[in-house]
């Protein structure tokens, strides 16, 4: 009895060798029914199309095994049977398209502060902006690929430090971060006007990937947190 069962399994496998297989007509019928059906089918419906006394469940299990390694699987949903694309191939069924979107004002400000003041922590960004920065804003910037997590500041709370990535330079057409205009140039361009406190300065930015003395490397979990793009959470 055990031999018979084994034989059957073998028969199924031998098909993958390209050999002609002795599959029962019932299997073909099940296959065709499941394929053409507009909704999952229950065993009773399937049995109605098969000779009386057919072990529908047994055949379905066999079919399931046969398809297990294929691009399409026989699956059971809510007690009914259907064919579905293998889970690991779900990516085939998606098509990505890009939609141009403008960054929010908050995101642009934050990006600029990261660019000029890197490595910079969220608290430092908030101090410059004078408002709290939502997690969404930083997530969007991480998603753009322009901002990256650098490390952690050696300070109470060990806050994450942010910096710009290479994609930042290429997007904004900068050869190096030092091409960002300094205070005089900003004034010259009319972007900064009027009197400013004497101590006001614009830092000379650097995106040197080497960690600073006050930075620790990131921990394994940090990147996961940073790289998971939030689904469409955009700060307006």
């Amino acid at each position, binding site marked *: 009895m055990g031999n018979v069962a084994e034989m059957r399994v073998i028969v199924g496998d031998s098909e993958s060798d390209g050999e002609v297989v002795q599959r029962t007509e019932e299997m073909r019928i099940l296959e*065709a029914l499941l*394929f*053409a*059906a*507009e*909704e999952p089918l229950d065993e009773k419906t399937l049995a109605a199309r098969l000779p009386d006394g057919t072990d529908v469940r047994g055949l379905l299990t066999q079919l399931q095994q046969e398809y297990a390694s294929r691009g399409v699987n026989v699956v059971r949903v809510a007690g009914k049977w*259907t*064919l*579905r*694309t293998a889970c690991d191939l779900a990516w085939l*069924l*998606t*098509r*990505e*398209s*890009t*939609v*141009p*979107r*403008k*960054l929010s*004002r908050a*995101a*642009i*400000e934050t*990006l*600029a*502060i990261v*660019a*000029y003041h890197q490595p910079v922590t969220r608290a430092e960004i908030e101090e*410059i*902006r*004078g408002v709290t920065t939502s997690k969404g804003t930083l997530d*969007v910037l991480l*998603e*753009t690929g*322009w901002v990256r997590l650098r490390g952690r500041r050696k300070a109470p709370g060990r806050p994450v430090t942010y910096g710009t990535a290479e994609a930042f330079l290429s*997007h*904004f*057409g*900068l050869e190096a971060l030092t091409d*960002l*205009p300094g205070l005089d140039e*900003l004034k010259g*361009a009319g*972007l*900064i*006007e*009027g009197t*400013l*406190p004497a101590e*006001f300065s*614009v830092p000379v930015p650097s995106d040197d990937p080497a960690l600073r003395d006050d930075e620790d490397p990131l921990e394994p979990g940090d990147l996961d947190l940073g790289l998971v793009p939030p689904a*469409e959470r*955009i700060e307006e």
Partner: protein
Amino acid sequence: MNAEELSFETELGQAAVGETALVVDVEGFEGPLDLLLTLARQQKVDLAKISILALADQFLAFIEAARALRLELAADYLVMAAWLAYLKSRLLLPEQPTPEGLSAEDMANALAQRLRRLEAIRQVAEQLLNRPQLGREVFQRGQPEPIAEIKRPQWTATLYDLLSAYASRRQNEARSHVSMPKRSVWSLAEAREAIERLVGRSFDWSPLDQYLLEYLVEPSQRPTVLASSFAATLELVREGRLEVHQHKAFAPLFVRARAEVPPELPQGGGSDALNG
């Protein structure tokens, strides 16, 4: 030609939904060519060997019969009848060259060719319809899994956006920081708690400044610490828990915890401290 033959293929003339039926023939023929083809089949010979003359006779007889029955015939049939009558006369007469150069034989052959072509197209149409058709004999996937479109935002910003955002933010920040930094003040309660803790049970005269030094973290805090601790000291003296004295104005202030029996005061009056 009789009425039975007239009803030939009646059932084939049914028009499908949405199709306006042409009044081509009350008996269901698909036009004169169809009728000719039907008559030709009755000759039971290969279409290649068909006698056009005989066919013309049959057709004309059919038309006569229909007329006798007062059946309304579409113009197509009458045109064909006229043409066949002409062809018949040509075929029966000795052949003479015509201005068009088309002999009666050519005309007959052309008609035979048309009949063959119609028959051929009918045969292939049948073959086509006998093929397994989608949704009739063969089926496609009943539950196709549609491709989901994932719209990825492609973020855009210009360098100008970036710089102007930065500049205006920094400018705003600089202006808002012109306001005085918030002064840190040592409250009376804090001072009192500190003095109580510091002087504690020390019954020796100690200069107040000495205690306070512990707190003078940075010079900017000195005035507030001094002011608050002095006020707190006086309050503790009034409560009889501390004693304080000073040799002279602006001299260091000495403080000690007050015992049950007030011990002797050091040299020099101390009450002027209360006026300081």
